[in-house]
């Protein structure tokens, strides 16, 4: 049986939570409330709590996590439009 995992990391001014169960994974960026997950069978991003989802083309968890971290390190503040483009 594969284990689940949950991690909390501080990157710049943001807290990044990543959560994996054998069924799905999610990355949540707080306090800005951005979520990338693979629920419902495809990878997508939400830009707010209760916000609609936007499909992205990147599907690999590690690659997406790296893109988010690099985006914060380079830009300091998350630019939602730019981040979405980087994930397409």
């Amino acid at each position, binding site marked *: *049986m594969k*284990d*689940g*995992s*949950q*991690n*909390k*990391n*501080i990157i710049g001014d943001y807290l990044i*939570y990543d*959560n994996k*169960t*054998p*069924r*799905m994974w*999610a990355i*949540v960026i*707080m306090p800005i*409330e951005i*979520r990338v997950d693979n629920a419902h069978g495809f990878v997508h991003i*939400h830009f707010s*709590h209760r916000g609609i989802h936007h499909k992205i083309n990147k599907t690999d968890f590690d690659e997406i996590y790296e893109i988010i971290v690099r985006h914060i390190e380079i830009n300091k503040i998350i630019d939602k439009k730019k981040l979405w483009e980087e994930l397409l």
Partner: protein
Amino acid sequence: MTAIRMVRKIKGKEKVKEFEDKYKNLQNLQMILESEQGNMLHQLDLENWEHYLENPDEYLEEGKTIFVEGINLGELELDLMHNIKNKQPNSVSELARMVNREAGAISNKVNSLAKNGLISFKHGSKNRKIPILEYDKLEIGF
């Protein structure tokens, strides 16, 4: 500043117990989630709670990264953490006895561990502070 990753591995049913302590029941969490206070972390908690209710014997590895500054993680500090984790002292005085020191001699060190997020306190009877360490291991990044 040093990055330390704190890691623990727990069973799904232990995680469910933590959710029960935090939110009492699933309905409460759902109410919070639907209220103004609800946020994406509540959503994550809800998903995990439902998952581990169905899979209580599954293991979950939890990690958090903290940044510590101005703390000496020497033999005494590691000994204090070892005792907090494995012998669960009921107070700082009891912890001091476990490491053969006076409470006054370790008080600053225990507070510094807590201030840096390496341990935490819960309130005991008679205003006692009970030191707690919920994680199993530390990974230090260079």
